[in-house]
């Protein structure tokens, strides 16, 4: 029973990665909006884009980690 509950918890924790996807999409979408307004400045900001995406994704990774821990460690 407890193992099954852990699996349900892992599924719920997995939702967090989907919510992090919203954040990543937000970063990329805003970058594109800015890049279309001023395409000449866009090329220099791709590094910032990827850093932003990485930081937004980091919090989704924690929920993925929680899901993994519930699946295999609990």
């Amino acid at each position, binding site marked *: 029973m407890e193992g099954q509950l852990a699996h349900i918890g892992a599924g719920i924790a997995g939702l967090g990665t989907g919510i992090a996807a919203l954040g990543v999409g937000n970063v990329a979408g805003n970058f594109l909006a800015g890049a279309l307004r001023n395409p000449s400045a866009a090329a220099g900001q791709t*590094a910032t884009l*990827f*850093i932003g*995406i*990485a930081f937004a*994704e*980091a919090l989704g*990774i*924690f929920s*993925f*980690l929680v899901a993994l821990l519930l699946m295999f460690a609990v």
Partner: protein
Amino acid sequence: MATETTGEKSGLVFHPMDQFIVEPLFGNGPVTWYTPTNVTLWMGLAVVGVILLLVMGTRRRAIVPSRTQSVAELAYGFIHKMVEDVAGKDALVFFPYIMTLFMFIVFANFLGLVPTAFTTTSHFAVTIILALAVFLTVTIVGFVKHGMKFLGLFWVDSAPLALRPILAVIELISYFVRPVSHSIRLAGNLMAGHAVIKVFAGFAALALVSPLSVLAVTAMYGLEVLVSFIQAYVFTILTCVYLKDALHPSH
């Protein structure tokens, strides 16, 4: 990998996570730290690939570069510019280390895409070592360069005094969580991508959906080629960001 056990309760012909099992290369003995396994093999192949590209690329240097030389020069220039732009000119001392990291991860990722290959970077045990090495390097560099002033990284001077202790706790947590997110981002992305490919491949056993499944595998494979490069790029650029924090700890 594809053991025909159709009577399994999962309904798939093979389990999608079977591709990540670490097995000894010779015999069926227990896996200890010195056992040559398929991880060892594919890591070694990645290292050989890097050496081949860079040595062959610079063997016969010509004004009009050969294809191998162009690729080697492209990779070199790409990472050199990234280190210079993101971490600053004085971080170029660490360029060889960052170049090594990038080339190894890129080769391990792309070799993992070869059918029936083993993706070494899909294992947390591999990426956590890479991330911990970066974390330790950055921390040691910070303390050597700035001494105790490096701790100013956690004490945000620009914030109001009442907020500073709270911010210090948050900064401390985010600093020590770095190797975790750094490593799991790489391993998680690769593992998830390869597992998804295997799940779609498992559906190919049903004749009705098999054309769709082949299409999905092809599409996912294309995405994975992209992800392999982007994750290596992200890993490298985050190393540069952490290095910048250590070299110039002011906010």
